[in-house]
């Protein structure tokens, strides 16, 4: 029996309202599918591009222990990229197509990775702040309505929280170190603080996707709520380190039970989103270079696999 789109949409919304997961083979509105492809692939691209700023410090890590931890962390990000591309593929798009969107600049990824990692302390600050901000978003996504995405996020969150502690531990070590190390840590906080707050996206008033995303339980909290949650958690951590958050307007508001904070530079936010951040071009160039230089390898692997399966068919026939 054929159902009208309105009926199916109603059934679909009812399932979401009951807290059921939507699975790959279930009927879903086209817009839900597209929204998920956009969001999951943006997330996957962020993991892959996110390997670059930290990856550039692997060869310079200051101790064997730190080197191994950083290598493992960046490798985890590649793994997260894999789960997420696979989750996006369940919605009927190929990994190659998603890569094409990234490489041509059509797809977005988290703007934070368009900032340069210029000192070892940035490995601490990125883990502490960037992974910290990401976790706040991602813990919410473990309960998102699309099953394959939610399940990928459960595993990703476990690893991310490990990364965050690892980053904070780098900061603690620096802050317990020499004056030079403390300065390095403060400088990293100064540079990563505001971009980390921008990771939650535009204010609710400016956010174009929030309302629909809340209805479909893709998001369960608004950008501003998540940003506030991040600030409230992070300020005591900065105080413990003895570092100063670079915001003169920051102060505890007893009445609200939250920290008040200064105005985010939205001009800078949009500049980076639109492709004019400090490293946008370098990041895309690095991804394109790896992809283009790897083309002959992927072609060879495919050709070899085809020859092998042809051999199997012949040997079965004989």
């Amino acid at each position, binding site marked *: 029996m054929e159902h009208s789109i309105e009926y199916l949409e109603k059934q679909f919304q009812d399932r979401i309202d009951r807290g059921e997961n939507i699975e790959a083979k279930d009927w879903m509105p086209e817009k839900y599918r597209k929204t998920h492809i956009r969001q999951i692939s943006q997330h996957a691209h962020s993991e892959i591009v996110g390997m670059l700023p930290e990856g550039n410090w692997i060869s310079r890590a200051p101790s064997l222990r730190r080197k191994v931890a950083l*290598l493992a962390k960046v490798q985890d990000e590649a793994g997260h990229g894999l789960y997420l591309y696979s989750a996006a593929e369940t919605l009927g798009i190929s990994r190659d197509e998603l890569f094409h969107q990234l490489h041509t600049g059509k797809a977005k990824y988290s703007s934070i990775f368009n900032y340069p990692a210029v000192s070892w302390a940035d490995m601490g600050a990125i883990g502490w702040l960037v992974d910290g901000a990401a976790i706040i978003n991602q813990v919410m996504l473990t309960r998102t309505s699309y099953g394959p995405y939610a399940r990928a996020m459960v595993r990703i969150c476990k690893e991310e929280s490990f990364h965050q502690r690892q980053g904070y531990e780098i900061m603690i070590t620096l802050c317990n170190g020499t004056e030079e190390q403390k300065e390095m840590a403060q400088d990293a906080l100064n540079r990563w603080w505001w971009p980390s707050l921008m990771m939650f996206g535009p204010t609710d008033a400016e956010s174009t996707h929030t309302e629909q995303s809340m209805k479909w339980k893709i998001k369960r909290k608004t950008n501003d709520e998540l940003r506030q949650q991040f600030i409230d958690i992070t300020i005591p951590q900065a105080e413990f380190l003895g570092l100063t958050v670079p915001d003169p307007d920051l102060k505890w508001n007893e009445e609200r039970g939250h920290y008040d904070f200064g105005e985010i530079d939205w001009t800078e936010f949009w500049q980076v989103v639109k492709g004019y951040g400090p490293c946008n071009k370098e990041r895309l160039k690095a991804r394109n270079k790896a992809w283009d230089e790897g083309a002959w390898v992927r072609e060879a692997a495919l*050709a070899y696999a085809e*020859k092998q399966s042809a051999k199997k068919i012949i040997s079965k026939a004989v």
Partner: protein
Amino acid sequence: MQDNLYTYLLMLGDNSMILGHRLSELCGHGPSLETDIALTNMSLDLFGQVRSYFQYAAKVKGDDATEDSIAFLRTERKHLSSLLVEQPNTDFAHVITRQYFFDQYHLLLLEQLCESNDDQINAIAKKSIKEVKYHHRFSKTWMRRLAQGTDVSHQKMQVAVTSLYPYTEELSKANGVEKAMLAEGIGADLDAIKVQYYNELDGLLSDIGLQKPEEGYFYKGGKEGIHTEHFGFILSDFQYMQRTYPDMTW
């Protein structure tokens, strides 16, 4: 201090460290996510081995030596890795060929070190061989895949084999320290390894349709601390933090 044992540990650790470093340079730049993850995994395994060897070397050396002082504070001439492992990541064909040429040796070496009468080396070898069996399977499979994939991949593999084969002999050519360690029942018998090594290597190359260079010349020097010009750049990268900010805790 037991000088020969210390030097032998440096030789074992340096090979893993410099190859691990070369692989780590590729993290985030592999031809596919799967190969990126695999190469990083091998780098991680190798650095794990480095830590085991250098923690032991630090004990042997005594004073206030640590795994990091040994890893980060030696000059070019004090590094005893073979020339093969410092060769650059020219392209994926070179990466795979360098890896297979080393893995084949590494596997044979560790099989023998699993019998070492030095308890520490014996234990490190037993742990490492599990990892190196995987590295060997990975690189050998890719040798075949690329040699027999497309014309382009075949040509690139031939270029890589021609350029890297002359670095292979040094691996199994015993120097004084290695001979002394063999005599003490600690080290491996490199003469025996050499025969098996070239049986495997030449057998594979012929099987997958690649030619080894006809000239038969080989390079040496790394094991005595005389490296290629690549090495100084590796160290300036590797030691940057320790040299710029001496005596700090990270």
